[in-house]
């Protein structure tokens, strides 16, 4: 397969994952803004930081007005992380790799671009926002469904899955970091029971508040949430889950190509060194430091994948 095609499949999957993550973040922020107007500004800011768009937003708009933030995150073409920009990039990558997609997958991506383009043509009214966000998640689920149901389990499949999990791991780590950094600045809070609404938003943004309660009951602590989002392997958005999957995809590629790669070695090292120890030891070394290190390792892995599989010259 062409290196360019592998890269396009990988980036298509990354952008699709990003659009879904951003929709989840907006949803979490919106809920807070509705229920707690006094912390809304801080919450919107943390959403923007997580999405990596805070600086760009501040330069363009200044204060964290709810409808302005939502509009910026949903449909500003000048914001490369806005849903509309990201979906467009997913579609462009899908077009480039079109010969490797089944008709169903291509049509799901194209339909998603057309549908969201229509929904986001005008500024979304506050009372329409829940429906629009649901539609974004639904489009993404449709692409994923077409993908799972029709694609050959070949190298192309593995490149796209790599993109999905790399992006998702990055996102979960950012959510944790932002929440930790912004909301738990004092060491005294660590390990103690935390604000009900805050933890709900963290979990909501990864669609896991119900799963958490099911697993941990009523015990709500930074330690447990971090354990759930970092180490809990049955949770599809946890770092451990994502890394396991990346390792699987890279193993598949190494076996199929008969070529050991540096990327495979890096992924194995992340799983081994960072995700195979108790949560307490992670906290002992400092959660923020841990996450910063993880984000850096994840980004290095991404660069190595591009090199090993010749996405670009």
């Amino acid at each position: 397969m062409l290196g360019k095609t592998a890269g396009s499949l990988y980036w298509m999957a990354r952008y699709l994952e990003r659009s879904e993550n951003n929709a989840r973040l907006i949803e979490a922020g919106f809920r807070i803004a509705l229920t707690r107007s006094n912390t809304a500004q801080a919450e919107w800011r943390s959403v923007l930081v997580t999405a990596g768009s805070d600086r760009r937003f501040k330069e363009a708009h200044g204060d964290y007005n709810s409808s302005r933030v939502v509009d910026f995150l949903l449909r500003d073409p000048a914001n490369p992380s806005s849903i509309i920009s990201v979906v467009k990039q997913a579609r462009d990558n899908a077009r480039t790799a079109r010969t490797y997609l089944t008709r169903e997958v291509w049509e799901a991506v194209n339909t998603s671009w057309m549908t969201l383009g229509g929904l986001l043509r005008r500024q979304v009214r506050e009372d329409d926002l829940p429906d629009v966000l649901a539609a974004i998640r639904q489009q993404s689920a449709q692409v994923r469904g077409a993908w799972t149901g029709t694609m050959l389990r070949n190298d192309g499949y593995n490149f796209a899955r790599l993109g999905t999990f790399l992006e998702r791991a990055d996102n979960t780590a950012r959510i944790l970091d932002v929440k930790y950094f912004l909301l738990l600045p004092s060491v005294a809070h660590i390990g103690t029971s935390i604000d009900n609404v805050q933890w709900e938003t963290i979990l909501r943004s990864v669609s896991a508040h119900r799963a958490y309660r099911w697993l941990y009951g009523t015990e709500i602590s930074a330690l447990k949430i971090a354990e759930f989002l970092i180490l809990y392997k049955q949770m599809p958005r946890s770092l451990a889950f994502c890394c396991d999957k990346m390792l699987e995809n890279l193993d598949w590629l190494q076996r199929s190509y008969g070529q050991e790669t540096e990327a495979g070695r890096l992924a194995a090292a992340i799983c081994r060194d960072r995700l195979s120890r108790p949560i307490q030891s992670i906290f002992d070394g400092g959660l923020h430091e841990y996450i910063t290190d993880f984000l850096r390792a994840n980004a290095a892995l991404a660069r190595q994948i591009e090199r090993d599989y010749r996405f670009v010259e």
Partner: protein
Amino acid sequence: MQGQGGETRAPYREFCEWFDAEEPSRIHRKAQQAEAFFRTTGITFAVYGQDEADERLIPFDVVPRIISASEWRRLSRGIEQRVRALNAFLHDIYHRQEILRAGRVPTELISRNEAFLPMMMGMDPPGGVYTHISGIDIVRTGANEFYVLEDNARTPSGVSYMLENRETMLQMFPELFAKVPVREVSDYPINLLRSLAACAPPMCGGTPTVAVLTPGIHNSAYFEHSFLADQMGAELVEGHDLRVVNGRVAMRTTQGYKPIDVLYRRVDDDFLDPLNFRPDSVLGVPGIWDVYRAGGITIANAPGTGIADDKALYSYMPDIIEFYTGEKALLPNVPTWRCSEPEHLKEVLDRLPELVVKEVHGSGGYGMLVGPAATKKEIAAFRKKLEANPRGYIAQPTLSLSTVPIFTRSGLAPRHVDLRPFVLMSPAGITITPGGLTRVAMTKGSLVVNSSQGGGTKDTWVLED
């Protein structure tokens, strides 16, 4: 669809029976479904100079254009003869130039032709094939009168529409195909692959690797490029995926560089090789020319083939056919005035309001004058252009083109059409897909069918015997 007397022409009889029994509202609904189908599939073309997001649909008409088996036999014999002659002509022009020595075609027509490639002199393309893929535009003026309007030997496009139009009709009106015996077009991609593979270069070892070279997703015909690569199971490559490695053109795969044997290129000659042609181009492959010359790759269509698309040369096609085949042309040309010749120019200038005048190197319906549809002012302006550069133009009469019906809000209505059958050539012979792309002037009375000028398309049916 109807003959001179108003009776339904034979090939349309079964279709008409079906059509008359259908509710117009149902057909209307299906027509709308067809549009949604095209949109979802992404069968669009980008309009240059406009917002890149502006991908347009080519209007699709649900009424097929139907050609009887015997009409098709006549047509395809004429097309085959023409393509054979074109290929022989190209070989001659790039070798001994007998036809110029014999004075049958003026030398300056070649020497002044921008598409003429001196570097091809004396070269033998693998398999001796220049026009691997060609499209011959044909118009009909009466029951048994077909004329060739234009030859497209450079990179004829539209074959994906031929295939998708059929696919759409099969989805919308499956029952119709049980009633009417229509010949298949769906084996075009496999024939294309076979025919390209049969022209593998001398250095090819084993099964030839075929790839399609596209300028990328912003090209107006990108849909077609990816469609063809997909259907053939070939790689779709861009210039930056390729480089010369060990004397072969190779593509960058996830496991390193792998050689390509046959490149179906959809970029023009000028852009093929920045080392040997235009240095500013990033669409091609530096050094591909040297690999080509050494027999390391087949380029389809062969470089320099575009001279056959020249509209001034077109007017000599009957002579060219006779010269190489020893037979009269089975399909006539549309009578053509060459404005480069003083008497012709005089006549053209006298009769401008009734003629169609085209640029010799033009394409896509740009830069032409359709006399009967033009205003006095437009004609006057065109007269000036013509007088300033007569060599740049040819003129043709506006033929009384036959019409076929399209489906409109108020029922069936006649529109002018042309037909582009697609022809594949390999050392084993010539294959013509039964059908082709029918383009329709969607505006009442209009003669312009180009998609860039608002033309539409419809499915083309060649009936079984």
